[in-house]
């Protein structure tokens, strides 16, 4: 069995980032806030990661992102929680984030000590069906108010056949949903929305999205200055605290450091041999497996999944199937403009995913831009939204760009769905294959 031991002096060493300290500090502060909130009177709002958090931040509440919660449970390898959920009739085939969270809810324990009981739950339609159902289950369990945030994607044919009409209908529909969401939150929290705060949050959020895009662009440089592990750690922050100045601070510091690295010629991993593209969530428990890629001299340099948290992605990938005005960002000045900008954002996002032709175009664009030698798809068992069309993307890459792809069967947090032995062996084979093909390409070109 192809093993790798970190003990051996490592020719693909990956130097740590300096800004870790700050990042950790911010994250810990967040954990503290939640821990405090569990006992305090402050209402906890549990919502999906796809909810436009600009809606929640203006209120004085604690926001818990379900996916984030599930992922941290998984990070602590607490599969007992998932088993509890399965005992209660939530099949093993369901999303592992969901099973983790439901288990934590039922056992009333988790990495924060007790499980943070929500005052209200918000689910989102769009990326996948499971998401809504999972949050519906939470709401039914606690018997708390439950809001479903719906959104109408613009299908390729819509804009072609119906032009503005269809687009307007969609955006207006979403705008109304945002309005309803705010009514809902005002009623649940008994607070009045602070318009100024709202406007401000919108701007911060947009700024952070742009920063994230910059970071990803730097990541794609050849050779790549940082590793995907660094980015996953940043992502954790992006998901849990997207619209805060803390995040802005961390990102700015991070970007600064990366520039520094580029000047000094420090790379994410030393002697990078092959550049890969990663799609779908990381297995939070299999970061070691990512290390194994590194030990083989392979590093990741692009990821449509990570790009999801920026703004470029959703604007690029829908191509010309939406009108120009929908892509343009205008700094909002008042409530109505905020709602409208939000609606535009959500509509484009949901028009871009899940949608096969869009994701395929996007992935090809990324592969070319970042000079990728191969693609790795983490086929996340039970997640239908994010790994949507992984196979189609892989085929397109192979046929149109002659870039080989590898589909890795796994799971976000349930390591019972992941057999490391065989996978490591296959990773090794795949990297070898990519290397050989690359060698030949270079030989041909010279």
């Amino acid at each position, binding site marked *: 069995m192809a093993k790798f031991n970190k003990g051996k002096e490592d020719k693909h060493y990956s130097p740590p980032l300096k800004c870790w300290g700050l990042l950790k500090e911010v994250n810990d502060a967040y954990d503290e806030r939640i821990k405090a909130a569990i006992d305090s009177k402050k209402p906890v709002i549990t919502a999906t990661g796809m909810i436009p958090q600009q809606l929640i931040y203006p209120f004085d509440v604690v926001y818990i992102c379900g996916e984030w919660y599930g992922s941290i449970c998984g990070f602590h390898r607490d599969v007992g929680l998932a*088993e509890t959920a399965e005992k209660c009739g939530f099949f093993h085939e369901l999303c592992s984030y969901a099973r983790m969270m439901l288990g934590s809810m039922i056992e009333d324990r988790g990495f924060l000590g007790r499980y943070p009981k929500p005052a209200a739950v918000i689910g989102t339609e769009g990326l996948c069906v499971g998401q809504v159902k999972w949050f519906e289950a939470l709401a039914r369990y606690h018997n708390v108010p439950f809001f479903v945030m719906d959104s109408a994607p613009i299908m390729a044919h819509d804009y072609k056949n119906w032009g503005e009409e269809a687009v307007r209908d969609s955006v207006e529909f979403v705008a109304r949903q945002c309005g309803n969401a705010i009514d809902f939150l005002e009623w649940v929290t008994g607070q009045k929305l602070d318009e100024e705060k709202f406007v401000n949050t919108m701007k911060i959020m947009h700024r952070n999205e742009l920063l994230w895009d910059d970071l990803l662009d730097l990541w794609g440089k050849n050779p790549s200055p940082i590793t995907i592990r660094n980015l996953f750690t940043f992502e954790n922050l992006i998901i849990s605290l997207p619209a805060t100045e803390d995040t802005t601070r961390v990102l700015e510091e991070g970007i600064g450091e990366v520039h520094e690295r580029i000047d000094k010629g420090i790379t994410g991993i030393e002697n990078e041999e092959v550049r890969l593209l990663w799609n779908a969530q990381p297995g939070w428990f299999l970061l070691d497996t990512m290390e194994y890629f590194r030990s083989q001299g392979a590093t990741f340099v692009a990821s449509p999944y990570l790009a999801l948290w920026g703004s470029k992605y959703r604007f690029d990938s829908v191509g010309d199937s939406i009108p120009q005005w929908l892509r343009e960002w205008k700094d909002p000045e008042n409530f109505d403009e905020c709602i409208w900008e939000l609606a535009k954002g959500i509509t484009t996002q949901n028009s871009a995913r899940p949608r096969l032709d869009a994701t395929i175009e996007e992935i090809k664009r990324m592969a070319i831009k970042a000079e990728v030698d191969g693609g790795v798809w983490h086929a996340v068992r039970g997640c239908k939204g994010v790994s949507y069309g992984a196979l189609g993307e892989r085929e397109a890459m192979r046929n149109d760009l002659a870039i080989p792809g590898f589909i890795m069967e796994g799971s976000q947090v349930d390591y*019972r769905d992941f057999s490391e032995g065989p996978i490591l062996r296959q990773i090794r084979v795949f990297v070898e294959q990519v290397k050989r093909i690359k060698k030949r390409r270079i030989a041909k070109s010279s």
Partner: protein
Amino acid sequence: MITVGIDIGSMSADAVIMEFAEGIGRGKIMSYAIIPTGWDSAETSKKCMDLALKKANIKFSDIEYIVSTGYGRVIVPFSNKNITEISCHAKGANWNFPSVRTILDMGGQDCKVITCDEAGKVTSFLMNDKCAAGAGRSMEIMAKLVDVPLKSIGEHSFQIVDKQAMISSTCVLFARSEVMELLREGVHKNDILAGACDALTSRVLTLLSRTEVQKDFAISGGIAKNIGITKRVEERLGLQAKIADEPQIIGAIGAAVFAKDTILKQREGGQ
């Protein structure tokens, strides 16, 4: 009256001949036979039947009613009726230990947890369909690999030499090759068996934990003979399991009892 219960399992075929004082009473076992299931189970069931008849030394014609159960229940040529092993195990366990309310049946192919009422009627059941489907099978495979007779796996599994081996794969086939690798690395067979028993036990327990295990609970099926499993289960549950001296034939007993009940019903109907 004389009735027969015959249980064609995945690994073994069991036949039980029972005699009941007219209508009433607990009845008693006249004889039973256990033979491994061959590839032609109609044949097997006949063999098994004849063996039991010989032991009891009675003629086939003396038998009033025959109920078949188990995987092969449908193709026992001479049975009057067939009932699933789940109902039969409940009945049989209830016949052995009337106080029992929870039964853990570990057969060759799968593993079931059955709860029943005082009459031995099933009130709910859980069946394991994932890799633990190989419950008995996996044990058989392990026994073959480390070449230890199936029945003495238990003793071996408690005499750990170095430290209990870790077997991660649940899938029987991968577990098998994992064990081969361990053997090649020179791990002692006892340690491997300990690992195997432990792995199986924890799988059984996840199933058990899905229901309320009553204080009076019984273990039946071929695996019940393997103290390597039963002891561990008891230990982890903190309960004393009731195990019949011949746990393998519980299903067949249940079938025989069902046969008796059917006759009684028919007679009522007749009058």
